[in-house]
């Protein structure tokens, strides 16, 4: 499919520019802050003399002029080198890769569940528009949408870990339990239940609303009337004619949000003490770990761009009208 290849290369070129622009933008944003990592480390050491801070600054390259730092940074970014975190004494790339699995397993599971659940509930609600089940789904969805995500997390911990003791409240696995194989997987899955539920609930509400609205829109279109006039059974009309057409706007929004789930996971990872990218980002802000912060920004931008690309591709597969147009 040379068309698709052309399309992808076109989008990639565009994406590279966006990402480079973001890198520059972030660089200045992050450096606009007062204080630097040397200061934080001096503060945490509990005692500091001028030499110590000076040493740190030199080590971090913070004594160079800003444009020089930008130059160094950009030339590294171009080579896919995200730099070195002096605070954590590790290459940023390694740090991110350490944290990425947790965040990905959290966000992707939440995303997939939210998408499937949202589409199912939205369809149900729309096809029964006006009945009590529609009302119930709508009300619950709206409530989930309006509730602060961290608050849901806290309430779930309170209920399921503290009061009922069914599920672990934090962490990604039971440490020192020595599980292997299937047991280890189950253990990890158990740790993910509450965070995934919390994160997924909000997005499920979003997708439910979207699906419902989209189906209501499609439901009255002419081609659905045609399908009815053909004497097709209802389930086929819903699944083949209505849903497939209604799903497109949901895919757009979903693809758009998939990248932003990382933002939502800051809160989730904080509440549930998960060592993921979101928390790393928050800590990096507070500790002024420039390199890490810039790395995360870059990574998330890449994720968003990749997801947008995927969305476009899926879109072009589902919708023949989109001739993978730019």
């Amino acid at each position, binding site marked *: 499919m040379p068309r698709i290849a052309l399309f992808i290369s076109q989008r990639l070129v565009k994406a590279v520019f966006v990402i480079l622009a973001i890198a520059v933008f972030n660089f200045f944003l992050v450096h606009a*802050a*007062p*204080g*630097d*990592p040397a*200061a*934080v480390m*001096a*503060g*945490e*050491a*509990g*005692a*500091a*003399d*001028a*030499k*110590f*801070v000076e040493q740190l600054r030199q*080590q971090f390259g913070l004594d160079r002029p800003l444009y020089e730092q930008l130059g160094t940074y950009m030339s590294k970014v171009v080579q896919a080198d995200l730099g070195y975190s002096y*605070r*954590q*004494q*590790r290459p940023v790339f390694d*740090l991110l890769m*350490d*944290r990425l699995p*947790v965040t990905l397993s959290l966000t992707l599971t939440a995303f997939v569940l939210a998408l499937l659940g949202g589409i199912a509930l939205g369809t149900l609600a729309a096809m029964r528009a006006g009945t009590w089940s529609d009302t119930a789904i709508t009300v619950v969805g709206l409530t989930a949408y309006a509730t602060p995500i961290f608050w849901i997390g*806290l309430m779930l*911990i309170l209920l399921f*870990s*503290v009061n009922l*003791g069914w599920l672990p*409240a*934090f*962490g*990604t*696995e*039971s*440490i*020192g339990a020595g599980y292997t194989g299937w047991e280890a997987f189950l253990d990890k899955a158990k740790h993910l239940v509450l965070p995934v539920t919390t994160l997924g609930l909000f997005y499920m509400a979003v997708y439910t609303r979207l699906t419902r609205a989209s189906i209501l829109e499609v439901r009255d279109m002419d081609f659905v009337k045609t399908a009815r006039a053909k004497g097709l059974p209802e389930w086929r009309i819903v699944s083949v004619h209505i849903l497939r057409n209604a799903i497109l706007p949901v895919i757009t929004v979903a693809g758009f949000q998939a990248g932003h789930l990382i933002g939502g996971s800051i809160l989730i990872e*904080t*509440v*549930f*003490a998960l*060592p*993921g990218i979101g*928390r*790393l980002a928050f*800590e990096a*802000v*507070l*500790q*002024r770990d420039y390199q890490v912060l810039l790395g995360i920004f870059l990574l998330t931008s890449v994720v968003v761009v990749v997801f947008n690309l995927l969305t476009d591709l899926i879109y072009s597969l589902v919708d023949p009208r989109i001739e993978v147009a730019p």
Partner: protein
Amino acid sequence: QERGGTMNIIVQPEPPILVLGLNQQGPTQTVAGKIYQGLLTFSFDLKPQPELAESWEVSPDGKVYTFKLVKNAKWHDGKPFTAHDVVFSTSKFLMETHPRARATFSKCEKIEALDDYTVQFTLKEPFGPFLQAFEVSSAPMMPKHIYEGTDFKANPANATPIGTGPFKFKEWNKGSYIHLVRNDEYWKAGKPYLDDIYFRVIPDAASRAVAVEQGTVQQTQFNDIETFDVPRLKGLPNVEMTTKGYEFFAPLSWIEINTRNKPLDDKRFRQAMMHAIDRKFIRDKIWFGLGRPATGPVNSVTRFHEPNVRKYDYDPKRAEALLEEAGYKKGADGTRAKVRLLVMPYGETWTRLGEYVKQAMKRVGVDVTLETTDAAGWVNRVSNWDYDLSFNFVYQYGDPALGVTRTYVSDNIRKGVMFSNTMGYSNPEVDQLFAQAAQTNKDEERQQLYSAAQKILVEDVPVAWLLEMEFPTFVDKRFKNAVTTAIGVNESYDSVYMVKK
């Protein structure tokens, strides 16, 4: 006292690195204290106890210190620990990487190994608290054979720390846990007892509390448990709480006052602050009973504390009178003055404290605007004197010369340096007293000098002292001997054992 058992200890925040010589943040000390060792440790009353040094002598003029080392200590890679390691650590490694050690050992004229197991330190002039500098976090012993001739900070061996301690580094799952295992060739026969120690990273305070309750972790220390959880956790049947084991650190908290700015340059205004703030309330309601209201610059568990100083009781009336006297009359809106308070970004409790101070000062007519920032911003602003009020607490390291002097003497007014005399307080008399007291090793003489200094300082209020802070250590009742010395949880844990039921 049998062998075996795994202990899970909270570590928070996650240390950046475990090489104690390179990083001395609190969490690093707690973890690395099991891997590295110092020459000495300290009893609860801050008397030196043997560790890697089995005995020591001080010359009568107080200038020469000679240590005899244990003979069977080995590094985790099997190499013997000798006097040369001590010399390397104190004269090379720490001089480059450890600000506190640098301050101490730069007072030495020479450091030499008399033989493989004897080290001698010769001081340029007597320094009272010299022995205090040999505890594990102040002077951790680093392996010469690994670091000699390398760039210490970039040495690849930093990823797998090698010490002489009872536990060896096994694995570090970043963001999750650090795993230490028993050092089978530990130099104390039959020790340690525990097989494994896991340090678990749990960034959320509420989660940490849950972890203690559910018994997932068996020990917490320092600020791990937020103060409001302390009363509840104290009541748990499976854990025991102690506030002992922090004597060496003896943290003291205060409101940092920028005495360069109006109206804070007025002694009476600062005294009024001392009267306006109810330190008992702070202790009881914000620190939930932990700590003691501070009376002056030296913590009562630190050596040379002077109890007989001017007392500042909670007395808003008195505070208002002092403000009137200083000329701060009430304006139309009931406000006498406006100041900013830069809240220390080290957790909820300090935020609550900020809110309390704001309300307390409002009661005497001083309008306080709260400012928050992150750690970097806080260090940056305080060390560059861009603040009116802030909070701070510092460790006293057992001796005023180590942990108190630096805050008040005028030659430590250094812009851009944190934990210096950032208040800009300057009193030649105080400078003089502190200088003399450091240079003698006669305890009575030092007591007199320090008492005099404390009286002056309490009168001048260069900072508004709040609490002699206490940290709660929660330990699972099955684990014994966790807190035995003045450095508490930073100890090597070679004598900790688990009682199996």
